[in-house]
């Protein structure tokens, strides 16, 4: 597809890693991704296998299930956000969950997930989140207690707290910012 002077290759140039302990869920997800045009798809059946893959190659997008035995998807995300090199740690991560109650959504957000995908997956839902991951990545925040995309999706014009967003400072260092004194 021609787009101005660029040739839009579609998702075929991007690689994706799907992590889910359920083989059929991996097959289903990869079938949808191949339909979207992804040609380089990788899979892992647990967090540990995913971690090993991530040591060797960096996918462009990671899709991971929340509920997995031994190590949950949220823990895997927190681990890779903190421990992978910066060039790899900021990849878009879609977290799938079959039970999207509020505690899980908050846990996913605080682990550093870019987007949350409620199961059952829908073709449109998955496509929308992939497009968001490519076109609208949020600024990356790196601190001792949190590493991941900016958890605030809105800009509050009346906000008068510490200016910690990437656009506010050239070098983000949240740990150097002291909490405000209680009034």
């Amino acid at each position, binding site marked *: *597809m021609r*787009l*101005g002077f*660029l*040739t*839009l*290759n*579609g*998702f075929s*140039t*991007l690689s994706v890693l799907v992590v889910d302990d*359920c083989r*059929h*869920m991996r*097959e*289903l997800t990869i*079938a*949808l991704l*191949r*339909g*979207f*045009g992804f040609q380089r798809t990788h899979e892992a059946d647990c967090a540990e296998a995913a971690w090993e893959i991530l040591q060797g190659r960096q996918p*462009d*997008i990671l899709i991971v*299930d929340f*509920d997995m035995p031994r190590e949950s998807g949220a823990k895997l995300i927190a681990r890779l956000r903190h421990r992978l090199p910066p060039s790899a740690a900021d990849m*878009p991560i879609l977290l*799938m969950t*079959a*039970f999207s*109650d*509020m*505690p899980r959504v908050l846990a996913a957000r605080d682990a550093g997930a870019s987007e949350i995908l409620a*199961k*059952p*997956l*829908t*073709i*449109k839902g*998955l*496509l929308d989140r*992939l*497009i968001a*991951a*490519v*076109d609208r*990545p949020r600024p990356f925040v790196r601190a001792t207690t949190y590493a991941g995309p900016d958890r605030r999706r809105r800009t509050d014009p009346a906000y008068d707290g510490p200016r910690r967003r990437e656009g506010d400072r050239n070098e983000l260092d949240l740990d150097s910012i002291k909490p405000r004194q209680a009034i």
Partner: protein
Amino acid sequence: MKNATQLQDKMGGPACALDRTTLILEAQRGLDAVTPAIEAALQDRRITLRAAAKSAPLDTSIVFGIAHQIRGLAGTVGRQSVGALADMLGTYLTDCADSGAPPVDEVVVVLVLALDQAFQLRDGDPVLNETLSAASQLTHSRAPIHSSDARLQPQR
């Protein structure tokens, strides 16, 4: 003008410029190709769930694990009612675990039986609609006090 993101550079342009209709049709073809295997997997889990519901004492962790898998797979391959009942079963067990209240075996068994029946009926069948309604009422009436809904209420 906003700079292109790294992934947009790799793709040669923004993802929103792709032809959505074509992508959705191709993905549907991919989904159709794997649907028979997913249906077979769902039937396997149905048999395992039946056996788990008959075990004494009831192993709720096994029941939860199977409900979780059915919930994830069923809706995507057009089995919305099966997915909805698996969701009710999983949510009931999660709420019990979160609140510390032991699940009532009879509630679990009834939900497993309803789920088993849903496999035999098509979505929209009046019997299935009644089953869904009854199962929903049952889980709400037996839900522990500290359910996920209750946690979302503002603190006073």
